[in-house]
């Protein structure tokens, strides 16, 4: 054991008493200082959850849970999902034509790792991260495999959960819709005009033909 020349003299065990003082202070203060406490008595009180907290994904629908589902079963999230926990089957009509909506949309919550990449890559504002966290179940397989029925949540729910994000999305969608409507109207008008033009042309042709015939 090496020794040296002390520069200042202390009592042996001073550090030990300092330690006792710190723990003693903590013990006494734990009775009246709330911010000292490390724990929360869970079922009665809950730690405050940030509004940005994300847990598992959910699917957004507007108005109608079936028809209003924003998801188009494009499978981008399925491909990007890091643990590959999303399973999508595209719905088709009898002719095999895509209906642009999922027939099956399953997320295995026992595999999902809450990363939020699905909601980030979704181009249709359809999938978002939920804040629900009390999802424990005693059914390991079925209970944690969420299908469309449990995943679909209304746009109002989204609005309540993340007002900022949802209102931004809604505004964008509204603008898109308006644009689309305008485009559709324009298209319609154009189609009409085209049709009229065609009609006129046809009529003209017919007239011509008639004329020729005649």
């Amino acid at each position, binding site marked *: 054991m090496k020794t040296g020349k002390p520069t200042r003299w202390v009592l042996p065990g001073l550090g030990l008493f300092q330690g006792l003082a710190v723990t003693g202070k903590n013990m006494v203060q734990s009775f009246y200082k709330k911010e000292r406490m490390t724990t929360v008595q869970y079922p009665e009180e809950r730690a405050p959850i940030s509004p940005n907290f994300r847990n598992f994904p959910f699917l957004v629908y507007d108005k109608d849970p079936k028809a209003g589902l924003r998801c188009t079963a494009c499978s981008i999230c399925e491909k990007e999902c890091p643990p590959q926990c999303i*399973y999508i089957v595209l719905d088709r009509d009898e002719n095999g034509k895509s209906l642009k909506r999922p027939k*099956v949309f*399953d997320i295995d919550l026992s595999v999902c790792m809450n990363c939020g990449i699905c909601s980030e890559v979704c181009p249709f504002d359809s999938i978002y991260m939920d804040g629900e966290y009390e999802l424990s179940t005693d059914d390991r*397989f*079925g209970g944690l*495999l969420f299908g469309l029925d449990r995943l679909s949540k209304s746009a109002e729910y989204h609005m309540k959960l993340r007002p900022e994000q949802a209102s931004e999305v809604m505004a964008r969608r509204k603008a898109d819709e308006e644009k689309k409507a305008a485009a559709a109207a324009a298209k319609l008008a154009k189609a009409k005009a085209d049709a009229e033009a065609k009609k006129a042309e046809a009529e003209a042709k017919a007239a011509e033909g008639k004329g020729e015939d005649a």
Partner: protein
Amino acid sequence: MSVDIGAALQGIHAALPAAKVAMRTNPGPSNQHSLLVGNESLVDVLRFLRDHLDFDLLSNVSGVDWPDPAKADAVAVFGEGEETAREHGFLEVVYHLYSTSRRVGPLVLRARSADRGENACVPSVVSVFRSAEFQEREIFDLYGVIFTGHPDLRRILMWDEFVDHPMRKDYVAPDDYEYEPTPHDDVLVKAKRHYPAES
């Protein structure tokens, strides 16, 4: 501080004329070019770099599997007038060296095994850099590169009885996944394939 790889190459050539060292350029924007070192002179080159050019920190040792040699040459591009491309695939070990005193790096060195089979050998650099000890064991474990001269070449991450090298590109995952009840048809089909007796 990025490293002056040309100077390092010249230094090696001057000190170790017999060493087979060639520069390979990196086509990407990272500007990290590398030196391809012949296996027989790898330890000498590393020792020279450590003792005379102050590259005292062997930060990283990566194994890479190149079943298609053309791909390897696309990442580490030849200079002009150099050896021709290889015919067979090979395993590669990439070393990233830094200097703690001069604060430069990384100096990237590559060493390549003869093939991906029995001759997948690269000399061990543990005698020069202790930090390679576990990393070489890991590469041996996951890629199957045999480091000649390594003092304790055992599997490190996989268990001792494991046979294959899982990081190789042609590795096929074994049939040992856990069955779990699922409504998904293709998973069920897969399960049926794996458990023929049960279904």
